[in-house]
């Protein structure tokens, strides 16, 4: 169930999601937060088992903090996606897979990035991506109106349209839209702790 989308722009990244959590044919929650911020530069959009995803997000948070403390400079988006994928792969090979498909969106020195990490442990870098039961519908919208050189504001609009379209026809998605925008580092006056 779920519809989540992620779009990379020239200004950073945009993540979008619906708010429905399904329990079979029952709507378990209408206000689920499927986009989790890891810090000011990284966020994850969650499709699949929420508990599994939460666990992975917490692990990545801890690992990122440790790595940054140890080496003295921040962890890139790609490295963070790899941390998640490694965990997923370990789970798969131990016959206890994490039932998740995550969109990892964030910004680093190189700019914005969207990565798709699934339960197989695979990661792919994408310009835009969608996941969850509503993703075929969302992709229809994204494929037809996505273009490079978008601003975050434009991407926000497209992400909203994509999730809204999925919510119209996918029974697993609905109850409103959440959007998160992460501007690239040069666009924000960065107040780093430590």
């Amino acid at each position, binding site marked *: 169930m779920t519809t989540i989308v992620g779009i990379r722009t020239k200004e950073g990244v945009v993540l979008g999601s619906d708010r429905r959590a399904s329990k079979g044919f029952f709507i378990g929650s209408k206000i689920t937060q499927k986009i989790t911020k890891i810090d000011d530069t990284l966020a994850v959009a969650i499709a699949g088992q929420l508990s599994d995803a939460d666990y992975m997000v*917490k*692990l990545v*948070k*801890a*690992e990122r*903090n*440790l790595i940054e*403390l*140890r080496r003295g400079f921040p962890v890139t988006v790609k490295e963070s996606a790899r941390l998640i994928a490694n965990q997923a792969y370990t789970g798969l090979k131990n016959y206890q897979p994490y039932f998740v498909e995550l969109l990892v969106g964030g910004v680093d020195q190189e700019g914005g990035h969207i990565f798709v990490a699934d339960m197989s442990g695979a990661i792919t870098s994408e310009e835009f991506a969608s996941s969850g039961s509503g993703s075929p519908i969302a992709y229809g919208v994204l494929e037809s109106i996505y273009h490079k050189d978008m601003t975050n504001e434009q991407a926000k609009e497209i992400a909203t349209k994509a999730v809204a379209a999925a919510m119209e026809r996918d029974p697993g998605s609905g109850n409103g839209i959440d959007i998160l925008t992460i501007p690239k580092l040069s666009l924000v006056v960065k107040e780093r*702790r*430590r």
Partner: protein
Amino acid sequence: MADIGSSGVSNSRYPYYYGPEGRLLLVDSALEAVGRGSTTVGIKTSTFALISSHIKPTKPLVEPSEKIFAIDGHVGATGSGYIGDILQLIDEMRIAAQKYRFTYDSPIDIKSLARQLSSYLHDFTIYAVRPQAASIIIAGLDPAGIQLYQVDPSGTYFSGSGFAIGQYSDTAIDTIQKEYTEDITIAQAVQLSDRAIEKALGEKPLVERGIVTAKDATFNKMVAAS
């Protein structure tokens, strides 16, 4: 016969068990090693905690080791003793801090952190292994306020307002005890810690400092002034 266990390592058949006087030789040796480490002090009031450590000069082309370490956003630490042991203990604390966040979804309190470190160190005192030759001073902020702890190789930990470890730490702590007041300012505390280390070493030393204040709630290294 009279000298068995009374002084040297070589006389003791089992150096990792209690000696005749009820002392643990290995732990004593570790403390002895700490006593030869760089002079390191900590000062606490209700509004801030400052840690400061002497940087021993190295060869011109070699950068000296880092001595002040961020453990998590709200806590930092320094140490005296074998630098390799200090680094190991610092990493243990960083892992403990992240594990606490993972388990409880909140930053670790400083007493728990000191206890975890104490427990780690204590393990080395009950087996036939080498105890870590490092004492650690921890400065941090938690819901109970500003905290300052010292943890020794034996696993002993103290909470307090002023600590000194390493070479000539007796002289350093004397200086701090004489001039410490609860309403001391940060600038005064910096001066006092400098003076304590200076008096201990008898020369103007190069130091590295770290501070956590109740106001901004984060631990930061202080930019070198002297």
